[in-house]
């Protein structure tokens, strides 16, 4: 047996969250007392189901027959030629049923909700992708579905609002605060505090109180597990870089997590830089935020000098959030993941780039990850490999894209 060398920062034993739901100092259960028993119940059930063959078989079957997994890992030939450096592969979560990675998590959670005997499901949504995923699983399993969505997002993601309503969900417009994802999340938590006895809250990202950040990460990890197997098959080695956009951080955690102990694989998260880091109007939480407590978790936050949560901005509704999953806060502090940001305009350009070179129209969220290739690729060389997580497709964003850069296209 070889002796195990412990890499710097104690990462050999990466095993989070701990028994109290903490990722280092981050995470936890900072919620009103009313929710604790529901969280404890969920945690207990999940601890059993994680190793329950029947549950895992049922979930795997749904991922395969209903969601369309495994999703392909596509070699991006023309994008690779465009940069003339490392080989670029795309992990195609845009090909999941409903058009984004969000369904991976919604499927897992609806099975848990059924086991808990809950009859009513609530969710928050920004881009509408998580709302659509939740409405979809509720339709499939015959549960009542209520989705909270900020008024600003209802306007910019109209198509998804129609989709949710067609799927039988009630979409509740949220008028408080910045009328975006953070406010929709507040309202969903208030609903849950009120209706906790019959309601399960399907959180859409690796955020909120324990056990959600862990549970959503685990359900999304299928992305990274598949990618690992696929790239090992194609290239007989692991990638050098993995790039993903970070809103709450679920598609990023999903693709990063199975590689966390592969020290040589560099993990890169890309946040929304909005109008630019100096504009005060961005969502670069890990780049410019500070630790605080918000929506059930301790994590990096964008906040003012008094600890009030900032009004943030991103062109992409799914990244327009002043917090981030607590595990990302830990991964930043221990330098296992590096975080960057790109602006609205850079993301829009990247949307066109991927469309024209690869025939793939990415979601505006995803476009942030692609835009970062402009920074990353020049630093790479030809025998290196980059995987980009294509978290979702961009049909939902056509309104925004036409409004912003319609003249460039027409």
């Amino acid at each position, binding site marked *: 047996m070889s002796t195990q060398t412990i890499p710097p920062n104690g990462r050999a034993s990466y095993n989070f969250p701990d028994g*109290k739901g903490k990722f280092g100092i981050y995470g936890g259960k*900072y*919620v*009103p007392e009313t929710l604790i028993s529901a969280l404890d119940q969920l945690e207990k059930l999940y601890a059993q189901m994680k190793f329950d063959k029947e549950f895992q078989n049922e979930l795997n079957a749904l991922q395969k027959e209903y969601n369309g997994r495994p999703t392909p890992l596509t070699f991006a030939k023309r994008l690779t030629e465009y940069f003339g450096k490392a080989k670029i592969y795309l992990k195609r979560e845009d090909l999941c049923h409903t058009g984004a990675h969000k369904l991976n998590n919604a499927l897992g959670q609806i099975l848990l909700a059924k086991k808990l005997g809950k009859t009513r499901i609530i969710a928050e949504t920004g881009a509408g992708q998580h709302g659509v995923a939740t409405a979809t699983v509720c339709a499939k399993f015959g549960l009542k579905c209520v989705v909270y969505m900020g008024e600003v997002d209802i306007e910019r993601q109209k198509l998804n609002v129609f989709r949710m309503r067609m799927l039988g969900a009630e979409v509740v417009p949220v008028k408080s605060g910045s009328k975006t994802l953070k406010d929709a999340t507040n309202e969903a*938590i*208030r609903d849950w*505090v009120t209706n906790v006895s019959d309601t399960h809250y399907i959180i859409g990202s690796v955020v909120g109180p324990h056990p959600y950040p862990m549970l959503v990460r685990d359900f999304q990890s299928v992305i990274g597990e598949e990618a690992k197997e696929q790239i090992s098959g194609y290239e007989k080695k692991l990638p050098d870089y993995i790039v993903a956009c970070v809103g709450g951080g679920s598609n990023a955690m999903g693709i990063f997590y199975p590689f966390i102990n592969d020290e040589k694989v560099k993990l890169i998260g890309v946040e929304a830089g909005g109008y630019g880091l100096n504009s005060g109007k961005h969502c670069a939480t890990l780049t410019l935020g500070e630790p605080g407590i918000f929506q059930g978790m301790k994590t990096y936050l964008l906040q003012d000098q008094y600890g009030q949560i900032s009004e943030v901005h991103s062109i992409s509704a799914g990244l327009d959030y002043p917090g981030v999953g607590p595990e990302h806060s830990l991964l930043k502090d221990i330098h296992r993941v590096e975080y960057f940001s790109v602006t609205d305009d850079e993301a829009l350009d990247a949307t066109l780039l991927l469309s024209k070179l690869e025939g793939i129209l990415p979601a505006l969220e995803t476009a942030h990850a692609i835009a970062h290739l402009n920074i990353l690729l020049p630093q790479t060389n030809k025998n290196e490999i980059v995987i980009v997580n294509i978290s979702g497709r961009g049909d939902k964003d056509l309104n925004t894209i036409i409004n912003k850069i319609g003249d460039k296209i027409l």
Partner: protein
Amino acid sequence: MTKISSHIEKINQSDRKALSIFLTAGFPTKENFVELALSVLENGADMLEIGIPFSDPLADGPTIQRSSQAALENGVNMKDVFSFCEQIKSKTDKPLILMGYANPIIKYGTKNFCEDAVGNGGAGLIVPDVPIDEYESFYTNDFKDFEKILLTTPASSDERIKEIDQKSEGFVYCVSVTGTTGARSNFDKNVLENLGRTYSLVTKNKMLIGFGISSPENIKTFAPFCDGVIVGSAVIKKINEDYKALPEFVRSLSYACNDK
């Protein structure tokens, strides 16, 4: 006995339930807040809960959310809250309790927060987004001079209620219903059963009931199951709808707190 619990005990001994009134700091205006608070005390409140405004108050219903937002728009910050406390405390012996979400407190710095809050007359502290599960990580030694008031809810198991009672100081804040703050008109039988259950499990502390209480009738209904009541949203609503009638409203609540 602590400062707050002995105050409640004295009130109970004079055949009365304690009446605690919640006000959002700096609402409806910064200028008249101290005057408003003193008038509430003069008209029969036995203690005051002063809400520290927060941008995202997720345990609160629409009434207190809006008052919190209005206070922030009035420019109220932590220093203002302490200045209100100091001014109120110079005119009364009744306890002041601060209620605030975790983030503004840690941003101010817990050590500074506690020194400034206690230094300006704050006796108790309620943080609705810190349950006992986070007690150790949040309530460090910095908070030693505060009476940390913890909450129970209908969803709390018997065991948790006992643990909450053990850890709480000043009193136990019994949340009457599952839900956010907000005035309600009726409470069903389950609510009363649960209050009875909770009251019998809270043995170390005094117990005050809050959330949803909107009238003297509600107070009469709850009186057998508590040592006092907390009224928040109904008072904020009265301020919004009929400011001049507030003293009379508080008097009616206070009158209902007298046994008989």
